[in-house]
């Protein structure tokens, strides 16, 4: 338990570095140099050293923003813990806790967005809401199914596929970055933030990418039935690898529109879930 928390903290410290690598990789695809690998850390350090500006909405708003980050930190640690200990020890209970935590984080994020007296922020909040509704329920179902230790190969494969897609959506990357959509909504939900508070929101954004990558790793750990040292190695190697894969995928695509994204995700995930249901029922 303790060692996996230590690993989780190490991974969390590495998350901004992974983010730096992401920016470096994206730059390479753009045929340019890009920022130093530690850039996201530099950004965070700077943001936390800036003047504190409490936005309209005051303390309540600040509280929600900070709480959102803390929930995400907890969820991340839990997720790393589950993936490092592997299949044998992963319990439905932990999966439920994780799902509840991400649910709370999303609720907080939406609350933060719509409580702002800024039309872009509110719009971003609604978009986030639509997107979450079309991905997270499926994520929860497939995660529970995988953790519950279903033996049937087809069911496991379909559940894994759903989880992989949903995990990508969680990362908030193109084409699903519609809640922030810089050229459309002027940074959307983050528009009114400044200084340390923006730093907190940036941490949350990085954590979402981290959770997304770790979820993907978890799929492989669960599928491969890894545990102990092998699952540890998998986490250490697969997290950055997944991160980079996500990056490359996101550079190849454009931003989707909220109605198109919801329709696409709903259709795809609904069909997959129906298949899952059938295969689970048939026991294959």
């Amino acid at each position, binding site marked *: 338990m303790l060692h996996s928390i230590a690993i989780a903290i190490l991974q969390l410290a590495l998350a901004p570095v992974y983010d730096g690598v992401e920016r470096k990789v994206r730059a*390479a*695809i753009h*045929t*340019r140099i890009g920022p130093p690998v530690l850039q996201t850390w530099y950004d965070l350090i700077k943001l936390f050293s800036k003047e504190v500006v409490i936005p309209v909405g005051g303390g309540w708003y600040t509280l929600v923003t900070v709480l959102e980050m803390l929930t995400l930190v907890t969820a991340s640690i839990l997720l790393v813990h589950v993936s490092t200990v592997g299949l044998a020890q992963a319990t439905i209970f932990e999966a439920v806790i994780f799902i509840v935590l991400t649910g709370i984080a999303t609720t907080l994020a939406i609350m933060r967005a719509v409580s702002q007296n800024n039309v872009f922020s509110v719009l971003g909040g609604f978009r986030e809401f639509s997107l979450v509704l079309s991905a997270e329920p499926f994520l929860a179902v497939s995660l529970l199914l995988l953790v519950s230790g279903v033996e049937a190969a087809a069911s496991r494969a379909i559940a894994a596929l759903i989880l992989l897609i949903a995990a990508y959506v969680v990362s908030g990357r193109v084409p699903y970055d519609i809640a922030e959509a810089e050229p459309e909504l002027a940074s959307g939900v983050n528009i009114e933030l400044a200084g340390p508070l923006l730093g907190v929101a940036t941490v949350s954004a990085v954590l979402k990418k981290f959770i997304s990558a770790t979820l993907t790793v978890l799929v492989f750990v669960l599928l491969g039935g890894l545990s102990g040292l092998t699952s540890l190695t998998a986490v250490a190697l697969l997290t950055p690898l997944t991160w980079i894969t996500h990056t*490359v995928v996101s550079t190849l*695509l454009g931003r989707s529109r909220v109605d198109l994204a919801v329709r696409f995700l709903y259709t795809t995930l609904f069909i997959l879930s129906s298949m899952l249901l059938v295969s689970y029922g048939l026991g294959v």
Partner: protein
Amino acid sequence: MSIAKILEIALKTGRVTRKYPYEPPLLTSEFRGAVRIDPSKCWGCGACVKICPPNALALRNSGKEATLEYFVGRCIFCGMCAEVCPAKAIEVTKEFELSSTSLENLKSRVIHRLTRCSSCGSLVWTEAELKSVVKSSPIAEEYAVLCPKCRKSKFARAASIRIGVGSE
């Protein structure tokens, strides 16, 4: 998959970034940067001031001195001043690293002493202009140091002496 084509393009192109300021800028031989006024050649005639579209060049007369001021902060780098300068004193450089923390540092001035008409004492030429006019044209120095009015009357007087009318 054609969406992955961009990766192929990127791979083939490699990295194109110029590491300016550690590498030379992307500058061609034709680039027009800030102008430089050579104080040893400038006459202070003001032809450049007249042509300068944004008034980045100004000639101010304080009574004793005429100051040609070049404010690079308003320059549009058209190079017309260099084209019209009769003394070829203005040179278009390739200088673009002109940033400054104060406006004063963006100004360069050439100060010209003014000469007075030797007869009536009114201000006429800048010293440099006088020298170059004397050097390049057949005008005699005794005429050059006069203001146009005095010159005209001196010439009229000299002429009338020669023809022999109205002698005093």
